[in-house]
């Protein structure tokens, strides 16, 4: 009985939410259509994932949150309406301002991918180099252990001031954020490679190039992708923080710029967008993992 209730509860909440949205709102509440589309999209993804218990739970929490938000802003009307924008107003930003927003998203993503590429290139190749040479690693490891725990976000004001352009500075900071975990992971996996795999490789008399390309790299790949998963959210955070300091485009800039003008609908929408993008990036990485690592 309770289980059945638990199953239908999110859908009941959905209907309540829709009814609430369609009922008359206080003055100053914008077009409700974009918000309605978002609600329906959430419901669709819930129906799509109906088999997962956790999706049900998440659905309940999200709907309760949206109902409270909708009720107190659009229906009751809070005192400081400007600080607490109604969901209608927040989601109506997109159709109005989508060019600026998408431009910001793509500008942020371009920097992200540049940073990812550089970090992968340097992290993997330097990690291999250091991992394969006991001498280099015994010299470098103590130094690396001091430098690597410093969060690269700390450098960002300095990097923005130091480097010729904002783009260069943010690519530098993103690269560094992702570089350390990949680099460390690579060194460890080369040095601590499974003895059985190493013995097997050695008895096959594999040439050094093939050893790196066909043995060490695939062996380390799961670790590399795991460290990407961990650092993707952090690096996006670092980027948006940097954009707040010195950029003229990007989501971080968008949020900072509009909060300076007290346009909090846009600020909240920007924050939601960041959540969406980080989620999409995580989905992308797990997709890459699924394609590249079919052997586990």
């Amino acid at each position: 009985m309770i289980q059945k209730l638990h199953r239908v509860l999110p859908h009941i909440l959905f209907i309540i939410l829709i009814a609430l949205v369609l009922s008359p709102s206080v003055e100053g509440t914008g077009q409700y259509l974009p918000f309605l589309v978002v609600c329906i999209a959430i419901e669709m993804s819930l129906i799509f994932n109906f088999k997962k218990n956790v999706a049900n739970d998440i659905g309940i929490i999200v709907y309760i949150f949206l109902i409270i938000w909708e009720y107190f802003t659009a229906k009751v009307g809070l005192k400081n309406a400007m600080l607490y924008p109604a969901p209608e107003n927040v989601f109506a930003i997109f159709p109005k301002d989508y060019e600026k927003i998408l431009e910001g998203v793509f500008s942020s993503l371009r920097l992200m991918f540049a940073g990812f590429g550089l970090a992968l290139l340097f992290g993997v190749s330097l990690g291999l180099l250091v991992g394969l040479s006991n001498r280099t690693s015994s010299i470098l490891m103590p130094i690396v252990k001091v430098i690597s725990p410093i969060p690269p976000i700390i450098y960002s004001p300095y990097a923005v001031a130091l480097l010729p352009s904002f783009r260069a500075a943010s690519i530098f900071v993103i690269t560094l954020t992702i570089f350390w975990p990949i680099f460390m992971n690579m060194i460890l996996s080369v040095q601590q490679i499974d003895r059985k795999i190493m013995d097997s490789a050695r008895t096959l008399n594999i040439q050094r190039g093939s050893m790196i390309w066909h043995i060490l790299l695939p062996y380390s790949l799961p670790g590399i992708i795991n460290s990407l998963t961990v650092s993707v959210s952090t690096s996006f955070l670092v980027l948006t923080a940097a954009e707040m300091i010195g950029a003229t485009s990007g989501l971080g800039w968008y949020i900072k710029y509009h909060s300076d003008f007290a346009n909090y609908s846009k600020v909240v929408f920007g924050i939601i967008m960041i959540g969406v993008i980080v989620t999409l990036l995580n989905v992308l990485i797990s997709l890459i993992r699924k394609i590249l690592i079919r052997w586990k």
Partner: protein
Amino acid sequence: MGKIGLDNVKLNYNDNGTVYNALDGLTFDVKEGEFVSLIGSSGCGKSTALSVLSGLRDPDSGTLLIDGQPTTGTGKNRGVVFQHYSLFPWMTVIKNVEYGIRQVFPDKPKKERLTEAKKYLEKVGLADFVSKYPFQLSGGMQQRAAIARTLAMKPEILLMDEPFGAIDAKNRVVLQDLLLQILEESDEKKTVIFVTHDVDEAILLSDRILFMDQKKISKEIAVNFPRPRNREELIDKEAYRTLRKRVVNLFYYESDEKSDVEGGEGI
């Protein structure tokens, strides 16, 4: 002069400063085409001996001799099958074999290498599993694939370290028969050194059994049953039971009194 042998090999393991002597004057010689089993209780240094033979470890003193020549390091003339994980988990079964072939015959076109790999996988009964990954196979199937890879590389010498040690009794019998059959069918006669602690396995497969004890060879017994051998025929023979008793006595009780054996029943 033998095909492969060790001459007075000593080897120490150095574990963070504590030195452990694993081989102390190990000497033996295996003739071309001979199948020799190395038998001994666990921890007596069989795997260490095999790692010296394969070239994974060079001895601290003494020599590895191949065709009479002192040798160090691994080489294409030797193929190794380990107890676990000889295959690379990120390659499919056929890719594993093809990759092995490529190390020995880099000039062979990929298509031929794949055909060759497939041929060897069929030989070990894995025709239907060529595009599976190792984790999708049972332990026995993984060993079949490992054997196929090693054979496909056409080494003159096969080194096998308890290849069937982790496999259930029923499948072990099947794999022993398969190995026997493959070796008999192969064009060039392989020289094999086979580590085991299974007495029946040693007798069925070998021309000679070396007993390892106290870091060196303590005794040896020749197994003169004619080939091709057949398990069912063999175990029915009185001579087999006599020999088995002798091997068991040597292995477990370290005595070689033939008087004990005569009239003894098969175990």
